[in-house]
């Protein structure tokens, strides 16, 4: 199991922190925090729930963009793209450390 934390600075100022745990190629734990603004308030918890259990090669960019669009998530200081990029960085750096031969 690998656990990785990453801090992703969005150009313009806001920070997205992602903590992800990966086991057997699946996201087992995920926590997204930061100083951004999202509506509704439960958007992050909801998004985390949807990401949990997904394989690390999932198309998170499409997934998160779709989630924002369907649920009409309002954001200030961040975009769906930023969350996807932050997550990708967390997963990429985590996986590289523990690559199975």
């Amino acid at each position, binding site marked *: 199991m690998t656990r990785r934390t990453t801090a992703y600075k969005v150009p*313009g100022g806001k920070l997205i922190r992602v903590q992800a745990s990966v086991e057997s190629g699946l996201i087992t734990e995920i926590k997204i*925090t930061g*100083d951004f*603004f*999202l509506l509704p308030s439960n958007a*992050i918890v909801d998004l985390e729930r949807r990401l949990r259990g997904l394989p690390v090669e999932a198309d998170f960019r499409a997934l998160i963009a779709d989630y924002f669009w369907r649920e009409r998530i309002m*954001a*200030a200081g961040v975009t769906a793209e930023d969350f996807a990029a932050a997550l990708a960085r967390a997963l990429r750096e985590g996986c590289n450390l523990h690559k199975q031969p």
Partner: protein
Amino acid sequence: MAIDEAVMWARSQRLVPNTVRLYTWRPSAVSIGYFQSLEEEVDVEACRRRGVDVVRRITGGGAVFHAQGGELTYSLVLEERDPRLPESFTESFRVLCRGIVLGLSRLGLEAVFQPVNDITVNNRKVSGSAQTRKSGVVLQHGTVLVKTDPETMFMVLKVPREKTLSKAITAAEERVTSLSKEKGRPVDLAEVRQALEEGFQEALKVEFQLSELTPAERRKAEELRKKYASREWNFSR
């Protein structure tokens, strides 16, 4: 915080009109944004040692140190469908901050709104705001820095790993300022309150009626105090 949420609730129940509050903090406190992790942003132990309160807001945004006597905090509660609010969530921060910009200009300061949620004077931050919405009501609140205390701020907020403490203080002094610093003289909280009152009235094109919390708001605030005092709420992420 409990009062802000109580006013928001009362507005959603149509028990009160749109409301503006101007208030201060006692004792000093750190508030963090709804989406932040308390442990990541705040040295909770240092706060405890210094008698600094710690609270999670219902609004997003960052970690803020509210120095007792050092700042004036505002909150605005209005209906989401108010015609003065733009369609865009991002733009609404600017519109609701306009009262501060106008208020600061009444104090002889050239204030500029900086997206997403800041106001600067001479390119240094004097004010930050945060917003949330629930049940058709908008709550935006924020601080106006009247007098800064960078030492305490850095004792209680977690300094980014990359910076040493003194470097961080210098960097902050370059990015953050206060009304007193910009005016080159001590600025009175009462003076600021008056200026902001006028600024908000001008920006919102409204005349305020000085009032008090209603009994319903007081009861709700008492109820909500328990939430804001709880570990469950403050440490929820």
